[in-house]
């Protein structure tokens, strides 16, 4: 009984310690995800433009960044690029995660765009719309709904992978966990709590994605309601 109370005390202390830095995990993930969204939209659209060179460039971006381990990218941005153009940890870490997830997002956007019936392009073109106008007013708004669930799932993956930036000294959840474990030799309890906090975050996000999926399935089309 005493033991249990003692352990619960330890766990709650760890929890309190970790919760102080959890906002950094969230900040890093959100910033990285914003970069991923922008890169993803840009390269996803670039992947299907009529310009061959731009298409090739986007293909190269996607294949290279998906083919390199994220950890290596983080090292490259911090130790490699960071030393040359002087990036601080946060910028280097966020950029590495962002451009990496941008490659996955690009593929999601591309498949979302390609999922739209070609008749939509033709109808828009026959009304005199340019490719860009067609994309902006017809294709992307329809793709958006298809893209929301997988894109939101990428955020969850991104949040988990943000733990990798702990290695370059960014003091987020995982880094703080390591500090605590090393200082008090409480590895089991500490990593249990770190895992638990990630789990709370990801499970709540999963619920949120479910809600989003429902919302986007109904609104905007008035089709499925029938």
């Amino acid at each position: 009984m005493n033991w249990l109370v003692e352990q619960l005390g330890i766990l709650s202390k760890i929890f309190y310690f970790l919760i102080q830095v959890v906002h950094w995990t969230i900040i890093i993930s959100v910033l990285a995800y914003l970069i991923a969204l922008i890169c993803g939209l840009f390269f996803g659209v670039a992947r299907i433009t009529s310009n061959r060179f731009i298409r090739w460039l986007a293909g190269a971006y996607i294949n290279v960044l998906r083919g390199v381990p994220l950890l290596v990218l983080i090292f490259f941005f911090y130790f490699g690029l960071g030393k040359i153009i002087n990036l601080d940890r946060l910028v280097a870490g966020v950029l590495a995660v962002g451009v990496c997830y941008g490659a996955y997002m690009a593929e999601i956007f591309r498949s979302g765009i390609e999922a739209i019936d070609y008749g939509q392009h033709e109808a828009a073109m026959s009304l005199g719309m340019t490719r860009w106008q067609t994309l902006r007013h017809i294709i992307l708004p329809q793709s958006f709904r298809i893209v929301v669930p997988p894109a939101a799932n990428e955020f969850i993956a991104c949040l988990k992978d943000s733990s990798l930036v702990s290695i370059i000294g960014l003091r987020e959840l995982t880094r703080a966990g390591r500090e605590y474990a090393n200082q008090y030799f409480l590895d089991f309890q500490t990593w249990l709590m770190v895992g638990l906090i990630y789990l709370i975050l990801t499970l709540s996000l999963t619920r949120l994605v479910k809600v989003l999926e429902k919302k986007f399935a109904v609104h905007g089309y008035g089709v499925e309601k029938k």
Partner: protein
Amino acid sequence: MIIDVKNIVCRFDEIAAVDNVSLAVDKGEVVCIIGPSGSGKSTLLRCLNALEDIQEGEIIIDGFRIDSRHKEIHQIRLEVGMVFQNFNLFPHLTVLKNVNLAQRVVRKRKRDEATRISNELLNKVGLTDKINAFPGQLSGGQKQRVAIARALAMNPKIMLFDEVTSALDPEMIGEVLEVMKQLAKEGMTMLVVTHEIGFAREVANRIILIDEGKIVEEGTPEQVLDNPQNQRTREFLGKVL
């Protein structure tokens, strides 16, 4: 002469879907195009607004040469309205916005003006009560009438109709044909690919029969339907009449 098609060839992988077709259409003329499935009727229409490239020949519409690589092709395209078999309405937009959108972004009309024109056209096709509905809530006949209004909103000089009643339930065909008849009466230049021989007889100034990418018969409805010269035409009419 508003459409002048000279010896065009449109190939897919070496096979000519449109094979050396020439066609001249005067302003206000209604030309119905009939022929078996796969004979190249859709491809011919699609060439006319550069949805397909031609490899030989030339197409001149209202004095402009049609070329999909031309920078201003979207400018030239808006002189040619097109209505498709599968409607191709924009499902994420209401009926009103379907008709408004291109007016706003292509014709650069103000919202009020676009809405006024859309309301007029939707009234004309009998859909005033549906302006705020989404396409998914409409019947096939209603969808097709929206598609016609949407094309007309750009003030095209020519309208192309590609089997616009083929995907409709029989009881809805009439309402769409009625709108097209009205349009013909008002003097619109129309090219109509159709299997509705009755409609062709009543409305067309000229009927063209296409087979294997070639025009095999051409003339007034009486000439083509009642007194066909070509064996192919007789076979085709024998099947559809």
